[in-house]
């Protein structure tokens, strides 16, 4: 299944949470591939299963209540779901690294920046302490932190949000991982810092030939940075295609709705378009196509109410899960 260029291949991943109210199906039958050096953007509203997918790849789903119910996650052609915790520890941080959403709380408040990066480095690489310190300093320089010499001995609370996110990135890339999972890396930051951080990620990705799984709900970011896009809705991928294709020729009504609700430059609009309704709760998904209660196209179609469409190939690289997609 996996060819040489593919770093990560997820097949039919399902992650469930057993709660007292029943089983919450947070992720169902999700499949995608990421090729070396490419960026896949995982887009969707809050609670659609993006972060759970990312945590599943890292095997960080808290268990119980969470469990990976089925599927396979091939990382460099090896199924990491079969790895022992020990093997997994060797992969985490070393081969697959993750950047978290909240830079303000992702650094340990009782240790200096330097010591935290050094810890990440010396964990996976045989380096003397001085070398690791030197490397950490270089890493801070690479993420454009001014005066890294001084910043090394400072505590996280002395740094701004953007700075801390840079430190997180420096930590994540310090072991030159082949896959970087960025879970909404810019959500907590303001727009100018966002751009800087994303440029930085781009730059690092090019120089390290790293693959990136970019999780976001910001379509603007997707348009600029991603090679491929997977749109998630209510625990499933509803559309998957190359980035340009998504914006030019969206097939799924949900994607259309998302693109429609973006404000357009140069046109006068009184109100922004929205998709009516809310994301369904994972415990209480609607029957048939999960989008049908909000769907402007299929809301009256009997088939949409009863049968759930599978992700089907519509054109060469374009997949969509909608009964109307082919028509």
């Amino acid at each position, binding site marked *: 299944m996996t060819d040489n260029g593919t770093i990560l291949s997820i097949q039919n991943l399902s992650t469930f949470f057993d709660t007292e109210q029943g089983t919450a199906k947070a992720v169902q039958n999700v499949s995608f591939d990421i090729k070396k050096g490419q960026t896949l953007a995982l887009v969707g509203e809050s609670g659609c299963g993006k972060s759970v997918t990312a945590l599943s790849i890292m095997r960080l789903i808290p268990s119980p209540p969470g469990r990976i119910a089925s599927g396979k996650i091939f990382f460099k052609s090896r199924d990491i779901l079969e790895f022992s915790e020990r093997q997994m520890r060797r*992969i985490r*941080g070393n081969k697959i690294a993750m950047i978290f959403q909240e830079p303000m709380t*992702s650094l340990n408040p009782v240790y200096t920046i330097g010591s935290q990066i050094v810890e990440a480095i010396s964990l996976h690489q045989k380096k*003397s*302490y001085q070398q690791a*310190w030197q490397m950490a300093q270089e890493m801070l320089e690479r993420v454009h932190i001014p005066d890294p010499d001084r910043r090394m*001995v400072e505590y*996280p609370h002395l740094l701004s949000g953007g700075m801390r996110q840079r430190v997180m990135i420096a930590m994540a890339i310090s072991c030159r991982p082949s896959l970087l999972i960025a879970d909404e890396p810019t959500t907590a930051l303001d727009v100018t810092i966002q751009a800087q951080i994303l440029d930085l990620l781009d730059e690092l990705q090019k120089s390290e030939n790293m693959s990136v799984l970019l999780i976001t709900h910001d379509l603007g970011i997707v348009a600029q940075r991603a090679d491929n896009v997977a749109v998630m809705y209510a625990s499933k991928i509803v559309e998957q295609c190359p980035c340009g294709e998504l914006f030019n020729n969206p097939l799924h009504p949900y994607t259309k709705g998302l693109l429609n609700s973006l404000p357009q430059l140069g046109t006068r609009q009184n109100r922004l378009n929205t998709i009516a309704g809310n994301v369904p709760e994972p415990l209480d998904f609607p029957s048939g196509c999960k989008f049908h209660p909000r769907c402007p196209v299929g809301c009256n179609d009997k088939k949409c109410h009863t049968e759930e469409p599978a992700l089907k190939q519509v054109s060469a690289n374009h997949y969509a899960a909608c009964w109307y997609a082919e028509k």
Partner: protein
Amino acid sequence: MKKLELKIDNKNWGTSYGQLVWQQLTKNRTNLVCLWFIIVLFTTAVFAPLIANDKPFVVRMASTGSPQVEGKVYFPLFGALTANDYSVFLAAIVGAILLFSLRRNSRKVDPFLRPAVLWRQISICTVILFLGIILLQIFIPRKLDATDYRAMLAGGKATDAVFPLVPYGYGRTDIKVCQRPPNRNHWLGTDDVGSDVLCRLIHGTRISLSVGFVAVGISGIVGIIFGAIMGYFGGKIDFLGMRLVEIMMSVPTFFLIITIVAFFPRSLFNIMVIIGITSWTDDARFIRAEFLKLRNQDFVQAAVSLGLPLRSILFRHMLPNGMAPVLVSVTFGVAGAIFIESALSFLGFGVAPPTPSWGQMLSTGVSTTGEFLWWLSFFPGLAIFFTVTAYNLLGEGLRDAIDPKLRKAV
């Protein structure tokens, strides 16, 4: 950490979290007073046999004695000290060196390496201590020096002698001076067998402090490990652990201790261990609560996603963040343990009589003749009061020093 290098240069490594707390703590005058009081207590405890002893430091024999000892100088006190006393001195010196190296570390070793370097220093010190104690136990002869040097001095057998500050032994009985209120010779009076109260008080410091520290050390370690595991893993482990804690808590501790102490021989060690293993529940609950909170913090998730081993996540990343309530409860625990030991000794379940302890001394004030000899209860009571107060105030101060910093930092 594959390779450990002690890096010593004058580079500025920044202030560590511990230093920040220390600065905050020593800013407050009350805390300083308490700290100094505890330091004085410790010194007293360690050097008790040098402060209060009926053997003189130096004695010169008079010419009236037999010709072979004539004019000779002896050091009876150092000969009379037991191997245990020397072990305590050694431990104190090693401990002091460790404290100083801690200061040095904080200036010269980078914060990340500090725990590792400290750990190495602790191991080295422990080895030195163990070897030293074994050697001392082997080579220091166990001998009994029953000579009454003051009688010798009075009888003209010795010309000069230099006595310690309180020239009485704690086990000395002297019916002639029993039950005297404080006077010039016995500053705090004597008890009903004629022992000097001040001397017994000084020697009692050892017992009370060691009970406090060892008991709290045991309960702290057990509590932290239990609490950390319960809080981190949650679920079934947490459930079972908490039920165990609840069972332990529902048992009235003091009566349990009395029962156990009644079964086992009266030894200080037993008391310390029993107090330790019955009072870990509070620490465990504090740590569990903190860890439950920290478990979902992003930096713990980030630490896991970096691939750190469990030990490092629990004790390096989570523990310093959740340590505040436990540190406070530990200082209260020291006071509590001293209290329990006093109460046990008061009831007659404590250390065996010739060994002095504060609680035991309290009880002698009323029991014998029906008469209340106030100085027998007042001074040990005062000592207990001040020690417990000092620890409690220090606990308060520590809580204040840790809390706002942590909240600001997160």
